[in-house]
């Protein structure tokens, strides 16, 4: 009984979508609810889940292809079919961290997130029940234990197979179970249970729910546990969060405070930018035909986890251009330009709840494209999860704002002081385009540069954008 995995309708107004990447390979065993692919709806990149159990027989659509709703994208065969030896683990499922908020505002990423595939870090435990059900644990050797002890173990959420029996014949006694329960800090990540309210509370309080010790049945994390964890966390973070310098945002304090605090910080910073910095703007439209062709080819050979998206290539080209045009990479301090020692590329990411952060990819000019992709993926995931590292908040030398996934064609941005330039990236759109005297339809993107006229002139900005353009025409060299 074969089934087709089709392009879903992810909104009333959606008639087609672009396959960004496959999260499964041919031969993978998938279960209903497993993420299959990332689809770009023109509004956001969304992980699409399988409606069926089965084995992926054929992937019918290549990443990058735009297909109509209802088009078969993959064929699933019956689950009983001979499965591959070791089904590759599919990309991590999106954990419903704060489903309410997500349902209202899906994927509020304002950044190079672009098509943000598999945004959860790979370490994120998968806690949805259906995923647990999907992978029955291998039947372990059971230690002998009497029914009452078994029952007691079940009540305490203790796995009998992990308990050493001290009773007659290695029998597990009630005392053994109690000891195991006491010794256990928390159940294995894969078995974590978190109540919906606790999960929401953790999100609001900025608590990492994976670090919380659960006291509910079976080690379930409940609201009290999160609140208990939040108090020391807030105390710990407090001194760190009070930088005198207007950092773009403090990533650690509880969300309500974070949102308000960060809005104040942004207000101060942007007010200062527009008061002090005489902005100039230059813009160009870049043909991404070669890039998308090349990405399609190269992604075919890449494992799912290492596939590349255009946003990463744009960052990579920007980093190289910043090295080539160092006058735009640095700071305006005390009335003069101080060049950055290296290229630390800030990536503006808007986080759920509003606060905008621009963590840096350090030494971006020295990272190859796959590494840039990896850093971007990681950074966006952690920014959204509120787990940025402090070092990443240290000042970038140049910032990129990509609002392409929000449907914006052009971003004319405000420079983050004391930086002297900001690169704006719009959405990749198909447009009639003249190439070699012929008219064709090409994917193009609008790039802008906001420059500090005190530090550089428009011609510098023009040279910078031209460099990016040139680099993007030879994507294989990125």
């Amino acid at each position, binding site marked *: 009984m074969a089934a087709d995995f089709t392009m879903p309708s992810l909104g009333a107004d959606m008639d087609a979508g672009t396959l960004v990447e496959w999260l499964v390979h041919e031969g993978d065993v998938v279960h209903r609810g497993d993420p299959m692919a990332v689809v770009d709806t023109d509004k956001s990149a969304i992980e699409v889940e399988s409606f069926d159990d089965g084995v992926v027989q054929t992937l019918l659509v290549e990443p990058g292809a735009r297909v109509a709703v209802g088009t078969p994208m993959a064929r699933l065969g019956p689950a009983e079919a001979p499965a591959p030896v070791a089904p590759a683990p599919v990309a991590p499922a999106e954990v419903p961290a704060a489903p309410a908020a997500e349902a209202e505002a899906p994927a509020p990423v304002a950044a190079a997130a672009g098509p943000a595939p598999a945004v959860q870090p790979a370490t994120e435990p998968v806690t949805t029940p259906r995923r647990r059900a999907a992978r029955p644990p291998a039947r372990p050797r059971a230690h002998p234990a009497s029914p009452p002890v078994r029952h007691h173990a079940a009540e305490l959420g203790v796995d009998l197979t992990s308990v050493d029996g001290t009773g007659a014949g290695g029998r597990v006694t009630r005392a053994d179970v109690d000891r195991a329960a006491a010794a256990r800090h928390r159940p294995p990540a894969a078995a974590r249970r978190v109540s919906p309210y606790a999960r929401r509370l953790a999100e609001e309080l900025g608590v990492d729910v994976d670090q919380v010790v659960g006291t509910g049945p079976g080690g379930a994390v409940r609201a*009290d546990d999160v609140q208990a964890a939040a108090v020391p966390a807030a105390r710990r973070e407090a001194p760190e969060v009070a930088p005198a310098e207007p950092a773009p945002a403090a990533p650690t304090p509880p969300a309500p405070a974070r949102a308000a605090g960060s809005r104040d910080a942004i207000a101060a910073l942007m007010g200062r930018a527009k008061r002090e910095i005489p902005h100039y703007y230059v813009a160009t439209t870049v043909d991404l035909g070669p890039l998308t062709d090349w990405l399609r080819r190269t992604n075919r050979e890449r494992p799912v986890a290492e596939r590349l998206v255009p946003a990463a290539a744009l960052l990579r080209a920007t980093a190289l251009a910043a090295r080539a045009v160092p006058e735009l990479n640095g700071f305006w301090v005390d009335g003069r330009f101080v060049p950055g020692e290296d290229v630390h590329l800030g990536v503006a990411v808007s986080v759920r709840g509003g606060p905008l952060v621009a963590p840096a990819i350090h030494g971006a000019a020295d990272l190859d494209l796959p590494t840039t992709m990896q850093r971007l993926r990681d950074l966006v995931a952690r920014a959204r999860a509120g787990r940025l590292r402090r070092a990443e908040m240290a000042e970038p030398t140049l910032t990129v704002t990509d609002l392409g996934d929000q449907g914006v064609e052009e971003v004319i941005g405000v420079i983050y002081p004391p930086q002297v330039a900001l690169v704006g990236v719009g959405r990749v759109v198909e447009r009639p385009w003249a190439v070699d005297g012929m008219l064709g339809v090409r994917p193009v993107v609008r790039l802008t540069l906001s420059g500090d006229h005190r530090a550089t002139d428009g011609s510098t900005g023009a040279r910078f954008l031209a460099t990016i353009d040139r680099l993007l025409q030879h994507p294989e060299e990125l």
Partner: protein
Amino acid sequence: MTTLSTGATPVPAATGTVETTYREALREALREALREDDRVFLMGEDVGMYGGCFAVSLGLLEEFGPERVRDTPLSESGFVGAGIGAALAGLRPVVEIMTVNFSLLALDQILNNAATLSHMSGGQLHVPLVIRMTTGAGRQLAAQHSHSLEGWYAHIPGIKVIAPATVEDARGMLWTALEDPDPVLLFEHGTLYTMTGTLPRDAGHVDITRAAVRREGRDVTLVSYGGTLHKALAAADVLAGSGVAAEVLDLRSLRPLDDATIAASVRKTHRAVVVDEGWRSGGLSAEVSARITEQCFYDLDGPVERVCSAEVPIPYAQHLEQAALPQVDQVVAAARRVVG
């Protein structure tokens, strides 16, 4: 029979309140309806000469005469149908069915006629009928007289289903139900008739749409109605002894359910236990639990618990009957499980 003191004329109390029972409050409500509106009449098995199977209408035949308090043959379908006809013709019948088990004989009239006529006539025909019946177990009346099927009726669009659990509601719900242009089913739990309570002398009509918070608490919401309200309140007393503040909701109206009040309580306490004397599978408790999950999922700090009757026909033997019914210690245990 008429010499019995039936509370027909409550002795005025100096304080302005009167000691009464659930049974007397129901009777006083009937008396008021019969007195104030000459379109109102009561009919059912043994409601006249015998004074009602549970003595609710004791003395009303003597007071209002056989035109207004009518004994019927043992034919639920017949006299409920007659009630529907009388309501269509402009009267305000109150039909008593002895127990909810027997109401199944009239289910065709209730579901296919009373509940549908307003809709099928495009609102031209209204059936302002009130059907009272006894529900619930606990009195060793065995499986054919003890079930709690009000949840079945709560499934039916076109009717309202109410369940007075207090003396005040027993006194005040009937009039409001009679004023409703559509059929209202009023369920009286058999164990409540002897319950005593204090009413203001001028106790009057009450709404029949909203749930009531009978006890405030912050740790867990116990959702109950009718006979289970008092078990939930008793459980809340026990829980208070161990520092758990349970909020007790009395649904009062089983159809429509007061989603707003339920959700407001669960959003406050983050935990819920539904106590229902009906069976668990496909019952009213399932509906309440589902709605809590639909509306409050992200406020829940644990699964919704249910305490219901065992899935057996209610037994006759007292110890078995009690074992089959939701009990206070079960409610306490469920609340402790969710509070942790």
